[in-house]
């Protein structure tokens, strides 16, 4: 075991998979010599050579198409989109092409591509870097969307994603890259791509979150316990496509109330889908409406007010209190 940050855990996962499977390739903008703008691929080109870890020309659509083409020929590309705000440039290759290759060819070809990408607010990036755009891919059949909240999960989920035979969008919250360390086994291990995890047990209220919001929700839950003696159960979704509704329903059967917290804007995001599924699967176990804590429906704001815009522990706490009383 070693103490690792999330960025180290990701680097370690890439290293192990490159070492294990000669078909794994890592590429994107600045991932080679520079080791990625966040150093996620640091040292990998030196270790595995420029045929396996390489810089591409600056074109996200090109990166996506290259990945799909290589996948058709049996490689397992791990393509980096330098920031997820640039995903619009590669939308067709992900949502139009990669997602439907299996269906179109009746599995003659498959698309075991991982699109890794940093995203998430609170680190004062310029525009179009921090946006939480996972909702676009919650609505994209044929891709998985994985969002780890800690170093252990990041490593295990990334290894699972690389070994999975379908396209996986792997989103790395920038604020989590170096903000926490935890014990991470040095050897390879996997974490299932479609299972949520209860990260805090409680009997009074279910709080569902993913990415950096897991930590915000945990803070709010501690505060609620301290001030009111109310015990919230916090679920870390880990995947927003598919959504592990079973874990959510099991919790709601116990708590009868729920709040969903997301860093993305309010309308038609992962939270909306979660609430719809709760309605379908657990409405008779609810004692009140399921609420959302989200930013307003604006563009991701310029850096000056991002900390106010992103749900704070206080806002989540307010949401929890409302959910307990409505």
């Amino acid at each position, binding site marked *: 075991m070693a103490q690792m940050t999330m960025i180290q855990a990701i680097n370690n996962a890439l290293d192990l998979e490159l070492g294990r499977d000669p078909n794994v390739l890592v590429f994107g903008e600045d991932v080679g010599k520079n080791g990625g703008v966040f150093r996620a691929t640091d040292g990998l080109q030196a270790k595995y050579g420029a045929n396996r870890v390489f810089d591409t020309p*600056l074109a996200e659509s090109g990166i996506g198409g290259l990945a799909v083409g290589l996948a058709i020929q049996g490689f397992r590309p791990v393509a980096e989109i330098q920031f997820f705000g640039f995903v619009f440039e590669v939308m067709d290759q992900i949502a139009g092409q990669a997602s439907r290759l299996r269906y179109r060819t009746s599995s003659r070809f498959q698309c075991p591509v991982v699109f890794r990408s940093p995203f998430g607010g609170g680190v004062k990036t310029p525009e*179009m870097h921090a946006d939480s755009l996972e909702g676009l891919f919650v609505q994209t059949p044929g891709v998985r969307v994985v969002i780890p909240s800690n170093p252990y999960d990041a490593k295990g989920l990334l290894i699972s994603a690389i070994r999975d035979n379908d396209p996986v969008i792997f989103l790395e919250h920038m604020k989590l890259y170096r903000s926490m360390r935890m014990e991470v086994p040095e050897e390879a291990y996997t974490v299932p791509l479609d299972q949520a995890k209860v990260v805090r047990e409680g009997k009074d209220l279910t709080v569902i979150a993913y990415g950096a919001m897991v930590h915000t929700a945990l803070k709010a839950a501690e505060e609620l316990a301290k001030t009111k003696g109310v015990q919230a159960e916090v679920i870390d979704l880990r995947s927003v496509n598919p959504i592990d509704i079973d874990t959510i329903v099991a919790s709601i059967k116990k708590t009868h109330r729920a709040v969903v917290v997301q860093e993305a804007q309010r309308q038609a995001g992962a939270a909306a889908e979660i609430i719809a599924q709760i309605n379908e699967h657990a409405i008779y176990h609810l004692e009140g409406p399921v609420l959302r804590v989200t930013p307003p429906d604006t563009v991701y704001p310029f850096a000056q007010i991002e900390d106010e*815009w992103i749900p704070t522990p206080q806002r989540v706490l307010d949401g929890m209190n409302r959910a307990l009383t409505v």
Partner: protein
Amino acid sequence: MSTVLEPTKLVPYHQVLDENGKVVNRDLMPKLSDDQLRELMRRMVFTRILDQRAIRLSRQGRLGFYAPVAGQEASMIGSEYATQKEDFILPGYRDVPQLIFHGWPLYQWVLFSRGHQHGMEMPKDVNALFPQIIIGAQYVETAGVALAFKLRGEKRVAITYTGDGGTSQGDFYEGINFAGAFHVPAVFIVQNNQFAISVPVRLQTAAETLAQKAIAAGIPGVQVDGNDILAVYAVTKQAVDRARAGDGPTLIETLTFRFGPHTMSGDDPTRYRTKELENEWERKDPLVRFRKFLEAKELWSEADEEKTVEEAKEAFNQAVKKADEYPKMTIPGLIDSMFEVLPASLKRQREEYTGKEEA
């Protein structure tokens, strides 16, 4: 049969001044008055000082996003100087100097850097967009801005900028191709500073020059010494005049180098470029070369230099002060800026924040 598949370089390269400020091509020497020549120097010195101040402020944690410009002053200042006030600039994130000399108030640049949305708002009489973050987006939009000028019969030009890395984007090709197809008054500048963050230009493309990409779009493409302000000005002026006359778009590649890091957000150039390469380009410093040229003509003195340095420092300090005093961004203000007519759903969301503020 002989092989017919050979890569070709088909574009000219232009220089007016060599590295020592000696005129090497009299034919291309632009017709500029002594005052105009001095003004070019003043702008470059001013820009160099702004850059140093911005880097310093950034290191103190008092600025936000900043992409250094030192080394590229001739490309930036020379090309903008060839435009007129009514011409429209579509810049990339590094193209702050062009915007400033086109009228973007300095304090708004500081606001932009600090992540205040009002930084991006251009005063009414400034014909330009804010610095674009998405690489390539401005190239396609330029075709649209220029088509508008053509449709309205206005004698105006749209000018846009990207970097060497930017020429790999699909948007780059779409932009120059649309401009060619619609025969619009546009000038496309590529500042080839040899690197896209860490990636050297030879990894971007097998093309020998970036300017030759114009050939496929059916428009003229030229390469120019981007550290030679007279060459940059002269070539851009021809392209702007040509566009204004209704003769269509041009692609210009300026060969240059950024002395500093990619941005102030943690880039470390020692990871991807050698000291030798940096030294080689330092010898081609656009300010040094032009200063030598002017000094030989007795058009620039130590006193001029000092005066400009002081002006720049003062202007920067004033801008920072004004930005410091500027009201902070608010969530209701952000919500209001989304639509002309705010939908009811957003009005409701707005109330959640106004209530809180008043409390």
